[in-house]
C-alpha cells in the first residue's frame, strides 16, 4: 500500500515531517530503547517493558510510525489491549497524533477499520466481519455473549438439563459435583457447585480441551487426588453445558474465543488479513489467545508482544505467564523465526529508592528451574530516571496492627495538612484482598483522623451505605421476601435484609415526605394487585380464554365496568393509543392476547430504575449530589452510579415493567432479592470488577492490587505484607495432566512466584513515597521475600521521615493528552454541567433519557450506512465500466 500513500503525497505536495519533528512538537524525547522499538517494523518483536517505562507511548508512536511512514492502512492493524479503557486511550491518542500529521500534510486517516480493543471484543468483531473472514460473505449470526454474571445465571437456570445430561439426579447433583473438589466435606450448595463448574469449564475452554480426546487417553494419565470417575463426570457436565449454550444461542467469554479461533482455522487467508498484530499485556494471555495471535500472524510474521512477566496477575483466569517468558521459543515453533528483543528498563515513574527496593524484593526469590538450567523470569534490571536518592520507602515501626495502622493514619493526615498531596485520592492503600480484618482496622484508624476512604470493593458492594439505603427502601415498597434455606450465605443474606430494612425504617422516620412517597408506592402496588384480581374475575365469569386474542368490541366494556376497578385501571383500559396498537397487531396477524391486555392495564408507571431516580430527590440522597456538584466528596455519587448499573441489568434482563401478575405472592420481591441480589451477594464483587472506576475526590482509595494494575499514585501504602502460600490452586492440579502443551511453572513453586509478582505490582505503583505496614505480634506474618528487607537496619521508619523533604505531588502530565469531543464533552457540559457529571463522568444508566449510548448507536449505524452506500456506488461504477468494456 505504500504506493498509494506515496501517490497521495505527490498529489498533495506535502510529505510528513520526519518523526523526530513530531516528537519535538509533542515534547517527547524517547530513550534509545524506546526509539528502537518505535522504529521496528518487520518481523516479530518481543518488547519487555518494566513498570513506568513509557510502554503506552511506545505503542502509540510505533503504530503511528507504521501508518504514516510505512503506509500500513489502519484496517490492517490488530491491536489488543487489556481493557476497553486502555483501547480507548490508545485510539484517542492516535487520533490526536494523526490529526497533527494531517494538519501538516492534508492527508486524513480513518481509524474506524482498525481492530483495537480487548481480545473479547476483537473476537466478537471478527465473528461479525463478513467482509474479511467469511469467504462467501455469509456468516451465521453470532450467539449472544454471557458475561461472568450471565454465565452464573445460565448455569443456574439450565442446571437440571446439564446434570441430567451427565447422568446425575438434580437433587443430589450439587453434592456429587462438590465432592470432586472436596471429598471429605462436600457442600450441598448448588451455588458452590456452580462456582466449581464455572472455574473448570472456563479453563477447559481456554485450554482448547476436547472431551473426546481426553477420554481416549484418560487411563494413561495420572490424576493425583482426582479419580477417573471425577474426570469423566466433569467432561460429561462440560458437554452438557455446551449443549445448553448452543440450544440457547448464547456463549461465554472463553468459548467466544474458541469460535473465533475456529473461524481463523477454516478461513484460508486468515494469516494475511492483518499486516501487524500488536498485543499489550502479553503476560496475562491464555492458551487460546496465544493460538489466535499466532494464527493471525502466520502469514506476515509481524507479531509484536508487549509485557512484563513480573506483573503477571491473572493465573486465576487461565493466564499462563510462560506465553511471555518463552515467547522466543514459541515464535520459533509457530512462525519459524527468532523475534527481536528490546527491553524498556528505564523507569520514569518512581523515585530511585522505590525502584531499588522492588528490584531487591524480586531478587529474594530463586527463579531458577530445579535443575538450574533455565529460569522462570525474564532477566532484567530496572533503572530509575529520577535521580534523587533521598528516602522514599518507609515502614512503620514493627508493631501490632492497631498501633501500626494508627501510625500510618496520623502520617497520612500530616501529608494532607502539609500539602504534600493535593487531594486524598492521590494516596492509595493497596491490599492482596480487601476482605480482611487488616482493611477494617486501617479504615477505622483513618476515619478516626477525620479521613474518608473509598472502598466500594471492600467487603461486598451491596454493603456500602448507599446500597443499603437504596435497597432498603425497595424492600419497604415491595415487601420482604421469605427466604428459605440454610447455610452461612443464607444466614448472612438474612442478616443483610435485616440491616437494610432497619436503615430504611430510620430514613422513613426522619423524612415525612419520604414516608409519604413510600406509602404512595405501596398503594400503587396494592391497587395493581387488586385490579388484577378484579379483572381476572370478569374473565372467569365470561369463561374467556386468557390466551385468546383480546377483542375490543366484546371485552373492553365488561372489563372497564368491572366493579371496584380503580381509576388508573380504567384509564389504561380506555386508552385510545392502546386500541390502535391492538388493531395494528391484529392486522399484522400477531394479535395481542387478553392476558396482555390485563397485564397492561395492571402495570405500574415505573420500573426499578425509574424508582431509583425518584428516590434521589429525597434529602438524604440529594445531599450527596449537592456535594459532588461543587468540588466536594464524590464517593457516594460514584457508588450510586454503580447501583444504577445493577438496577439496569435487572430491568433489562428480568423485569422491564412491573405487572400485577408479578405482584402475587411476593413473586417480584423474591425475584429481585432472593434470586438477583442474592446471587450478586454470594458472588461478591470480584466477578463484577470495574477497572474504569473514577477515584472520587476527597476520598482515599482502597484497592486490591489487581485493581491497581496499570495505575500510579504519588503515595502508596501497602497495607498488608502477607499473603498465605496455599500451594498450587486446585484447578491447576486438575488441568495439568490433561495438557499437551509444554509444562509451565512447577506446581510446587507457582504460588510462591505468583505472590512475589503480585507484591511487585503493588510496590511499583508508587511515585514519590511507598509506605509499608510492618505488623508484628501474635498471629502476624510477613511473606518471605519481605523479611530480609524489613530486617535491614538501613530501612527508614516512618518516625524518622522529615515530611518537608518529600517532593510535592504535582499533576503529572499523562502520557497522552486527553481528547475532548466538541459534542460529547463541550456541548453537553454547556447544556448542563450536572447532567455531564452524572451521566458522562459517573456512568449513571439513565432510565428514560437519551445518553451517549444512544448517540453512539445512531452515529455508528449511520457511519455503516454511508460506508455501505459508498461501497455500493463503487460496485455499480465497476459493473458499469465492465459493461462499457464489453460493449466496446
Amino acid at each position, binding site marked *: 500500500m505504500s504506493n498509494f500513500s506515496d501517490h497521495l503525497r505527490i498529489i498533495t505536495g506535502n510529505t510528513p515531517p520526519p518523526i523526530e519533528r513530531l516528537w519535538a512538537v509533542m515534547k517527547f524525547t524517547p530513550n534509545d530503547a524506546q526509539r528502537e522499538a518505535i522504529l521496528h517494523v518487520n518481523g516479530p518483536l518481543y518488547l519487555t517493558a518494566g513498570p513506568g517505562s513509557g510502554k503506552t507511548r511506545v505503542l502509540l508512536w510505533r503504530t503511528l510510525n507504521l501508518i504514516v511512514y510505512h503506509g500500513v492502512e489502519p484496517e490492517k492493524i490488530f491491536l489488543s489491549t487489556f481493557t476497553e479503557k486502555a483501547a480507548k486511550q490508545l485510539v484517542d491518542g492516535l487520533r490526536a497524533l494523526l*490529526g497533527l500529521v494531517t494538519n501538516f500534510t492534508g492527508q486524513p486517516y480513518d481509524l474506524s477499520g482498525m481492530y483495537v480493543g480487548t481480545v473479547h471484543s476483537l473476537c466478537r468483531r471478527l465473528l461479525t466481519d463478513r467482509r474479511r473472514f467469511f469467504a462467501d460473505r455469509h456468516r451465521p449470526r453470532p450467539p449472544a455473549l454471557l458475561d461472568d454474571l450471565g454465565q452464573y445465571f445460565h448455569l443456574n437456570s439450565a442446571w437440571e438439563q446439564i446434570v441430567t445430561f451427565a447422568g446425575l439426579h438434580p437433587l443430589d447433583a450439587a453434592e456429587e459435583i462438590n465432592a470432586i473438589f472436596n471429598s471429605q466435606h462436600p457442600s450441598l450448595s448448588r451455588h458452590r457447585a456452580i462456582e466449581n463448574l464455572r472455574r473448570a469449564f472456563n479453563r477447559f475452554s481456554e485450554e482448547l480441551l476436547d472431551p473426546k480426546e481426553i477420554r481416549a487417553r484418560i487411563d494413561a494419565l495420572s490424576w493425583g487426588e482426582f479419580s477417573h470417575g471425577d474426570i469423566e463426570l466433569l467432561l460429561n457436565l462440560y458437554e452438557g453445558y455446551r449443549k445448553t449454550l448452543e440450544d440457547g444461542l448464547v456463549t461465554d467469554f472463553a468459548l467466544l474465543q474458541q469460535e473465533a479461533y475456529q473461524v481463523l482455522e477454516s478461513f484460508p487467508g486468515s494469516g494475511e488479513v492483518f499486516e501487524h498484530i500488536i498485543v499489550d499485556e502479553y503476560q496475562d494471555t491464555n492458551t487460546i489467545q496465544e493460538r489466535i495471535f499466532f494464527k493471525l500472524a502466520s502469514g506476515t510474521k509481524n507479531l509484536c508482544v508487549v509485557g512484563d512477566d513480573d506483573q503477571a496477575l491473572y493465573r486465576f483466569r487461565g493466564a499462563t505467564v510462560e506465553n511471555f517468558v518463552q515467547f522466543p521459543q514459541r515464535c520459533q515453533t509457530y512462525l519459524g523465526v527468532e523475534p527481536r528483543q528490546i527491553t524498556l528498563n528505564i523507569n520514569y515513574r518512581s523515585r530511585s529508592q522505590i525502584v531499588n527496593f522492588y528490584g531487591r524484593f524480586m531478587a529474594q526469590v530463586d527463579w531458577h528451574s530445579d535443575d538450574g538450567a533455565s529460569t522462570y523470569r525474564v532477566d532484567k534490571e530496572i533503572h530509575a530516571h529520577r535521580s534523587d536518592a533521598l528516602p522514599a520507602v518507609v515502614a512503620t515501626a514493627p508493631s501490632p496492627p492497631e498501633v501500626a495502622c494508627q501510625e500510618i493514619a496520623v502520617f497520612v493526615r500530616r501529608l494532607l495538612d502539609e500539602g504534600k498531596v493535593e487531594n486524598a485520592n492521590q494516596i492509595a492503600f493497596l491490599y492482596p484482598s480487601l476482605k480482611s480484618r487488616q482493611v477494617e482496622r486501617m479504615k477505622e484508624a483513618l476515619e478516626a483522623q477525620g479521613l474518608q476512604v473509598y472502598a466500594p470493593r471492600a467487603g461486598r458492594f451491596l454493603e456500602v451505605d448507599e446500597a443499603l439505603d437504596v435497597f432498603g427502601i425497595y424492600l419497604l415498597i415491595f415487601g420482604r421476601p421469605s427466604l428459605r434455606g440454610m447455610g452461612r450465605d443464607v444466614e448472612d443474606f438474612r442478616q443483610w435484609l435485616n440491616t437494610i430494612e432497619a436503615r430504611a425504617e430510620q430514613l422513613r422516620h426522619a423524612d415525612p415526605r419520604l414516608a409519604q412517597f413510600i406509602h404512595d408506592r405501596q398503594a400503587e402496588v396494592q391497587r395493581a394487585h387488586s385490579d388484577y384480581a378484579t379483572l381476572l374475575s370478569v374473565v372467569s365469569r365470561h369463561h374467556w380464554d386468557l390466551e385468546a386474542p383480546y377483542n375490543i368490541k366484546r371485552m373492553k366494556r365488561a372489563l372497564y365496568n368491572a366493579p371496584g376497578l380503580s381509576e388508573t385501571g380504567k384509564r389504561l383500559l380506555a386508552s385510545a393509543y392502546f386500541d390502535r396498537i391492538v388493531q395494528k397487531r391484529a392486522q399484522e396477524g400477531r394479535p395481542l392476547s387478553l392476558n396482555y391486555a390485563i397485564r397492561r392495564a395492571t402495570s405500574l408507571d415505573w420500573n426499578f430504575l425509574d424508582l431509583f431516580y425518584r428516590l434521589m430527590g429525597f434529602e438524604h440522597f440529594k445531599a450527596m449530589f449537592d456535594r459532588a456538584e461543587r468540588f466536594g466528596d464524590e464517593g457516594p455519587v460514584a457508588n450510586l452510579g454503580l447501583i444504577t448499573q445493577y438496577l439496569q441489568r435487572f430491568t433489562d434482563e428480568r423485569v422491564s415493567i412491573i*405487572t400485577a401478575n408479578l405482584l402475587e405472592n411476593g413473586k417480584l420481591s423474591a425475584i429481585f432479592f432472593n434470586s438477583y441480589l442474592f446471587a450478586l451477594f454470594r458472588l461478591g464483587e470480584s466477578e463484577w470488577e470495574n477497572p474504569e472506576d473514577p477515584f472520587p475526590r476527597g476520598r482515599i482509595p482502597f484497592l486490591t492490587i489487581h485493581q491497581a494494575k496499570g495505575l500510579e499514585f504519588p503515595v502508596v501504602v501497602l497495607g498488608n505484607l502477607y499473603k498465605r502460600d496455599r500451594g498450587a490452586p486446585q484447578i491447576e492440579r486438575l488441568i495439568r495432566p490433561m495438557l499437551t502443551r509444554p509444562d509451565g511453572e512447577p506446581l510446587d513453586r507457582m504460588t510462591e512466584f505468583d505472590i512475589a509478582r503480585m507484591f511487585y505490582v503493588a510496590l511499583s505503583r508508587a511515585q514519590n513515597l511507598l509506605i509499608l505496614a510492618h505488623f508484628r505480634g501474635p498471629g502476624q506474618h510477613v511473606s518471605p521475600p519481605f523479611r530480609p528487607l524489613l530486617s535491614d537496619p538501613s530501612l527508614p521508619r516512618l518516625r524518622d521521615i522529615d515530611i518537608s523533604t518529600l517532593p510535592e505531588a504535582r499533576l503529572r502530565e499523562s502520557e497522552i493528552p486527553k*481528547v*475532548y469531543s466538541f459534542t460529547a464533552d463541550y456541548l453537553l457540559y454547556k447544556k448542563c*454541567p450536572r447532567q455531564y457529571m452524572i451521566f458522562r463522568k459517573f456512568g449513571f444508566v439513565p432510565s428514560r433519557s437519551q445518553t451517549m449510548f444512544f448517540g453512539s448507536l445512531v452515529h455508528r*449505524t449511520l457511519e455503516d450506512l454511508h460506508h455501505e452506500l459508498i461501497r455500493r456506488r463503487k460496485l455499480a461504477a465497476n459493473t458499469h465500466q465492465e459493461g462499457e468494456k464489453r460493449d466496446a
Partner: protein
Amino acid sequence: MPDRSDLPPIEDFIREVFEENFELLVAESGHTISAESKQAALNQVLLYWRKLREIAERVTDTEVHLTLPNQETPQGREYTIEGVVDIVREDDRVIMYDIKTHDADYVRANLELYKQQLNVYAHIWQELRQQPLDEMAVIATDFPHEVKEALSTPDPRALEMALAQWEPVIPIEYDPAHKDETIFAFSEVVDKIESGEFAPPSLEVLESFITGGWRRERFATRVCRNCDARFSCDAYRQYAMGRRRVAERGMVYFIEDDPDQEEWRTASLDASTED
C-alpha cells in the same frame, strides 16, 4: 442506484448493522438502553434514510475525525479538540455535514453554539488541512413530534405528510471571526470538568424559552423534563416549585399525562421476559 439482486435492501442492511452495533456497544460500555430508546434510535436511522436519502447517497467521506491537537487550558492542561463530520464532494462543491441526534428546533434555537462549532471545524478543514469548503450544515436526526405521532398511527400517508414537513437540514453560515473565542471557551470548560465544577444552570436559564418548534417550550421542559436526574436537582426543584406544578410538587411524582408513557409501556411489555 442500480438494482442489484444480490444486495439486501438498504432498510434490511440498516436493521442488521444496527443490531450488531447495539451488541458491540453493550459489550464495550457494560450497560445498555431501554427497549424503547433502542427502538427510537433505530427509527432515527431509518427515517434519516427515508427523508435524506439524497444526501446519504452523495456522502463521499463519512465520520471524518477533525482534530485540533496541542491545546492548552488556562490552568495548564494539555488536550486535543475532536469533532466528527461527513463530507459531500461533488464536481464543483464541497459540503460539510455535522449529523446530530438532536432535534432541529433545538438546533435552530441554539444556532450560535452550532455556528461556533462548525466554524472551528471549518478552520481545521480549510486552514490546517488545506481543503476547499463551500457549504456547511447541521443535520438533526431526532425527528419532530408530528413524525413521532404519525409513526404510531396505522395510516402510512400520515407519516409521509409528517416527513414532508420535517426540515432536518439547517445551513450554517461561514464566519471564522469568533473561532479563537470558541476555542478559549472550550479550554475553560475542560478546566471546569477536570477540577469538578458541575452545578446545574441557573433558574433563569430553566425558565427561558427555547424558540421555534411545534410549541414554545422552556429549557426546563425541553431539557430537564427529559433528564432522569431532575428530581435531585436544585435548579429544577426551584423551577417546579415556582411553577406550582402539582405533578412535580408535593407527593405526586409520576406524571400521569406523559404522552410517552404509553409508548414506554408498549416497549417494556414487548421486552419483558419474567412471567
